[in-house]
């Protein structure tokens, strides 16, 4: 196979470009001076690495408490949003897969449009809904907003999985005398579970990453991790703590994805058999 030298070089450069900030985030978790954000003293001397930011986070020191609180809020919202959007997304995907009526084409439009809408438009329209109906912004409005944009992603992931779903299995279940509820909970749901987990993972990462929509609907004083970080200034002393937290999160996500890859790869031969 012929390889082009130019395209391989470009790929290498692009990879470097993509990885530099991530390596920086990792490295700055060990910075000794949080104000100057530098590994060097005023005299240009190398100060070494420091583990104090890890210490602050694991001991829950008061200076990082707002950060930890926002992080905890993010986790709670992402967890709940994943749960609700998985339920709504599963029913939506099943309906879109099973029936091809006029109702479903409208339904498809409703599910598909949020995917192409810029975040800021979803944010402002929800803010206006809450303003117009006099709902106070806070935890619940953030949750509603997150579910709204996660549903579409979960539905689309599941819909793609459903395309190679063998519908004869369901018919066989009915023929053998199973009712609709039994068929759904004992046959369809377990078979769809890998797809739901994949959609749920996507929803979780999107929810924990979202800053634009949240900054419209969070109200005063409720901050998720991203909105808290974006409201920090360059000179806030806790920046390295933020970097430490996101490094830990990256490692956690990698582990999670690795585990789910392992689980799904274990499932596949059984499904084929």
């Amino acid at each position, binding site marked *: *196979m012929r*390889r082009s030298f130019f395209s*391989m070089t*470009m*790929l290498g450069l*692009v*990879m470097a*470009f*993509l990885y530099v*900030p991530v390596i*920086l*985030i990792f490295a*700055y978790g060990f910075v000794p001076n949080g104000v100057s954000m530098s590994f060097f003293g005023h005299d240009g001397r190398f100060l070494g690495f420091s583990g104090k930011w890890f210490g602050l986070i694991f001991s829950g020191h008061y200076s990082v408490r707002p950060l930890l609180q926002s992080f905890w809020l993010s986790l709670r919202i992402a967890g709940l949003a994943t749960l609700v959007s998985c339920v*709504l997304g599963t*029913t*939506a995907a*099943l*309906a879109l897969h*099973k029936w091809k009526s006029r*109702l*479903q084409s409208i*339904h498809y439009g*409703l*599910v598909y*449009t949020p995917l*192409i*809408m*810029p*975040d*800021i*438009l*979803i944010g*402002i*329209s*929800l803010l*206006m*809904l809450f*303003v117009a109906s006099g709902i106070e912004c806070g935890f619940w409005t953030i949750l509603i*907003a997150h*579910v*709204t944009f996660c*549903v*579409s992603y979960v539905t689309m992931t599941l819909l793609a999985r459903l395309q190679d779903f063998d519908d004869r299995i369901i018919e066989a279940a009915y023929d053998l005398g199973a009712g*609709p509820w039994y068929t759904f909970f004992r046959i369809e749901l377990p078979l769809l579970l890998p797809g739901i987990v994949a959609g749920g993972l996507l929803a979780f990462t999107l929810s924990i990453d979202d*800053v*634009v929509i949240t900054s419209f609907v969070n109200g005063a004083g409720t901050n998720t991790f*991203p909105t808290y*970080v*974006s409201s*920090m200034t*360059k000179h806030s002393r806790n*920046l390295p703590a*933020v*970097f430490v937290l*996101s490094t830990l*999160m*990256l490692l956690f*996500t*990698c582990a999670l*994805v690795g585990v789910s890859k392992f689980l799904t790869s274990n499932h596949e031969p059984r499904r084929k058999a």
Partner: protein
Amino acid sequence: MTKKLREALVTSPSFIWLTLFFAIPSLIVLAFTFHGHTANGGVGEWSLSTWRELVDPDYPVIVWKTIRISAEVTAWCILLALPCAYAIARMKTKWRAIVAGAIMLPFWTNFVVRVFAWKTMLHPDGWLQHCYFAFLQFRAWCFEWLPPSVRGFCVWSGLASPTPPDPASSTILDSETAVVLVSVYTLLPFAIMPLYTAAEKFDFSLMEAARDLGAKSFYAFRKVFIPGIRQGLVSAFLMVFIPAIGSYVIPQMLGGTNCVLIGNKIFMRAIQNRNIPHASALATLMAVSVFLPLGCALWWRRHQAARDKREVEVRAARLMLGGTK
């Protein structure tokens, strides 16, 4: 349970949720554009005053700037992504999955934190600042050579600055360059992935055939590979251009006052000035500039499919005619 009832039951949860929290709010935004605004931050009577006020010299400039920056970002992303997609598609199957995964991996770090890391790197004392200033000087030097009319157009459209760079005021942080750079950084995978999926389906023996017939590598790349993956190119364009139009965080954190785009103006009007009708009108403008290219792309795709079908039919007809002769 009848079939209709069951369908309605399964459809209703997501349908009702999305109607309530997506369709109705969008209509509310549209309705607010036909209201005036009151001095105390409320929404006034029905009127067309908001649309009339959009002619305000501020807004068209911002819309144009947003479209120009999005186009720049899209062009850079596709230029960088093309050779990458080509390189990945030519690898062995095992390596492809690993490299594609490695491209997505940095994007599991929190988006805001990544932007913050860039903010740290673009600090006025950093080495990127020196590179930026050298680039500015080089660009000014290049523009010296252009004929005055072309230079005038570049200055007018915002591609070039009318004055030579000044070391004190040209910092890369709070500049357009920073916004373009970091937008390219965040959107690049969305250009690589569709191009890569299109390149994977591409039949590389066509390129070898072109080379056997005497085409140079780059000529074959341009004349055989690029047309072969045009569906992927259209997807990549949409995947980058649409989020770029809607970008808000990057210009907010890295653009300072020099790079206010529609997104920032919407936020400013909605949250800071409490001018809801103006924010709604700007949001409507943004939606239009998102759906216009999307509509064009969908039309083009359908047109292409119809043309391909016609071609097949014509060929089939010819074959049949040839067969009867």
